[in-house]
């Protein structure tokens, strides 16, 4: 036994059901809990978006059943402008924090990072468990805003001050609802900081014998770099939320200027700076985009070589690009604020790194395309979603060029063009990463295969669906359709309503396609055929252990690594065209 090297870092397997499945310190259970949480959150967020879309297409038609659920916000089922903003705020907050951050980073990262580095558990299992439960509590606090006071907040997922700071006078939901929002996000920051701490310490200190940094799988590199970004970004958002809470409940004036009159009432504050909130928020907010997307980069870079049976092109260039993106992500936050009023010189200073950051992003894309160039691709649901990721990431990235430049951004920033841009590049792309990861890793996580036919149907319907939803929004934006408005019945935007109706139908259709995924997920969990240890013929350490992995991941024998993660397409190694990381020298 090699117990001398890694004496049970994982705590012994507990016996009681609760300790094993609910209050577990096992990183695999915690990873699944994060994914389950994200699933509940994404369903909630999607239903909210359907209600909003329905209202945008048919502003005067009551939404069936909504009148009973929200008697003040939607009396008789017709949504008030305020309630539209409330839905938008909750949709954005739930999706960005509790889906796009939680699933690809905390969910898959928790499950697979320790296995991929050959560790038995995270560096600090109890902190890891705390991190999940704080996240869950944060989600419950956020959702409780639906049921208390005058409903959810209205200030968007960015919670711009002073709207978010002044309280009840600013509208329904700006009382208790907005305070709950700030408390929830502050808690979420704590959870993510604890999680990032764990990811970094595990990657640095718990790698198994032979797992040098150069041999780390690409997904682990991506999670590691993401956690470094998160460590800095959430460390700024948390104090910002504390300042916001103090402005709201303790009478301070960090963000509220003097002489502000809202709802005919002079606000009892003075001297604060609304722009200060925007700076603090976007210093977090832009890196957050990369927190959402970089795990997808890692997942796709791990999946494409497996199904192309070719090594990833330029692995070192790929990692260098990730690090470059991480650094640059801290220098570009001002490009969210061109419209907020900014010295033209500062705008240029923020514009240049924004354009520069497209270089590493473009290089990574070219590496992916180079990897599949000339390959005989194995088309599975996982590889299709990985390819789809590249497609939607490029589609969303291209519109970024227009938004990176202040002159064009000032026209486009308040329009649906921006909605199209960030939904493609951050929302849909990250979701495709999550889907790719799910189809790829499901056999390892649950020991059963997912249904490939349903998976491919799910891919094609989703792929076509998201383009139908978000492509026309570029046109809406160029035509001057402002965002965040609940209806366009009486003004110059009326001719665009048919397009809104098309988008709404496409959104409902795409949403319905997700039922295929849900069905596949639940059915395969219980009825799927048994999965072998390495169904995709991949190289990384998770495929060297059983499906699902035992409690301490490797059955008491930590693997010894003699190969990099990228050894595909060889011919000299006998019948296999790949070399696993744990294969002997």
């Amino acid at each position, binding site marked *: 036994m090699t*117990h001398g090297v890694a004496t049970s870092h994982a705590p012994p397997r507990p016996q009681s059901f609760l300790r094993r499945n609910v209050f577990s310190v096992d990183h695999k259970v915690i990873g699944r809990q994060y994914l389950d949480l994200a699933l509940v959150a994404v369903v909630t967020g999607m239903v909210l978006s359907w209600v909003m879309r329905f209202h945008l297409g048919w502003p005067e038609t009551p939404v069936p059943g909504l009148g009973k659920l929200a008697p003040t916000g939607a009396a008789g089922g017709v949504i008030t402008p305020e309630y539209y903003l409330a839905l938008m705020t909750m949709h954005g907050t739930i999706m960005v924090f509790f889906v796009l951050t939680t699933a690809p980073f905390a969910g898959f990262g928790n499950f697979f990072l320790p296995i991929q580095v050959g560790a038995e558990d995270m560096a600090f299992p109890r902190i890891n468990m705390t991190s999940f439960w704080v996240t869950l509590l944060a989600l419950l606090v956020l959702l409780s805003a639906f049921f208390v006071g005058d409903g959810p907040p209205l200030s968007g997922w960015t919670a711009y001050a002073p709207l978010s700071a002044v309280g009840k006078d600013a509208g329904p939901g700006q009382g208790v609802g907005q305070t709950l929002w700030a408390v929830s996000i502050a808690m979420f920051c704590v959870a993510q900081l604890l999680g990032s701490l764990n990811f970094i310490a595990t990657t640095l200190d718990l790698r198994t014998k032979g797992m040098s940094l150069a041999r780390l799988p690409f997904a682990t590199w991506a999670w590691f770099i993401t956690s470094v970004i998160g460590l*800095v970004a959430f460390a700024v958002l948390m*104090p*910002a939320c504390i300042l916001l809470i*103090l402005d709201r409940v303790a009478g301070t*004036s960090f963000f509220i200027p003097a002489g502000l009159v809202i709802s005919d009432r002079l606000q009892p504050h003075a001297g604060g700076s609304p722009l*200060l909130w925007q700076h*603090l928020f976007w210093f977090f907010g832009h890196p957050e985009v990369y927190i959402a997307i970089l795990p997808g980069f890692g997942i796709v870079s791990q999946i494409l070589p497996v199904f192309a049976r070719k090594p990833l092109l330029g692995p070192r260039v790929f990692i260098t690009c990730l690090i470059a993106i991480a650094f640059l992500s801290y220098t570009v936050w001002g490009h969210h604020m061109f419209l907020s009023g900014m010295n033209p010189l500062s705008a240029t200073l923020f514009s240049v790194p924004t354009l520069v950051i497209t270089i590493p992003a473009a290089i990574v894309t070219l590496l992916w395309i180079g990897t599949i160039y000339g390959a005989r691709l194995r088309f599975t649901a996982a590889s299709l979603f990985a390819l789809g990721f590249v497609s939607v990431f490029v589609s969303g990235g291209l519109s970024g060029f227009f938004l990176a430049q202040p002159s064009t951004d000032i026209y486009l920033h308040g329009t649906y063009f921006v909605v199209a841009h960030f939904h493609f590049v951050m929302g849909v792309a990250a979701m495709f990463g999550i889907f790719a990861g799910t189809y790829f890793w499901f056999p390892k996580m649950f020991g059963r295969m997912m249904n490939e036919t349903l998976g491919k149907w799910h891919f094609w319907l989703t792929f076509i669906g998201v383009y139908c939803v978000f492509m026309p929004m570029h046109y809406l934006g160029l035509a001057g359709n402002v965002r965040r408005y609940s209806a366009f019945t009486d003004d110059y935007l009326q001719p665009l309503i048919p397009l809104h109706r098309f988008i709404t139908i496409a959104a409902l259709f795409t949403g319905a396609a997700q039922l295929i995924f849900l069905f596949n997920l639940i059915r395969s969990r219980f009825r799927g055929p048994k999965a072998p240890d390495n169904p995709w013929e991949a190289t990384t350490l998770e495929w060297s252990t059983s499906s699902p992995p035992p409690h301490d991941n490797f059955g008491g024998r930590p693997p010894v690594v003699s190969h990099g993660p990228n050894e595909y397409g060889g011919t000299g190694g006998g019948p296999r065209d790949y070399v696993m990381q744990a294969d002997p020298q």
Partner: protein
Amino acid sequence: MSTAVLPPSTRVPAAPVVASGGGPRPSVAQTGVWIGIATISMSFAALTSALVVRQSSAPDWQHITLPPLLYLNTLLLVASSGTLEWSRRRQAPAGLLATLALGLLFVAGQILAWRRLGAQGVFLATGPSSAFFYLFTALHALHVLGGLGGLVYVQRRAAALNAAALYWHFMAVLWLYLLVLLTWLNR
């Protein structure tokens, strides 16, 4: 388990370390504390920049008189760092208890300092200067309480001593930074 082969006096590291390059690595707990230090520094840096922006955004910055008690508290905290280092190097458990006592006295002293300020009529919402004063001291005190928790934990698991000591010294350094910042702002 490795404890069976090691003599009972040997210190077991906080968490077994899996060497990757062969050479010894700092213990995992210490890595964790370094990462924590990075995060906490970033948070206070963010608050400092918020302070700079807020100070220049409006002409309503009022100077407050810092209670002299703060300097006594500073001495207590620096002394607690000294006793901890003494305890760590000489393996003297008494030093650890002294550190705990001094740390508790520091927090009590900070609360007393707030009360002194309150007696002058200076509260959180009085002005931007006082808001930042209460915010900085409260956040720092909370982190000190966390450090005290760590020191209590060390009583049970001596292996975590180095990590806890690292954090505790950082608390002293952070406080010195905050004191200089607050003094300079209210000069």
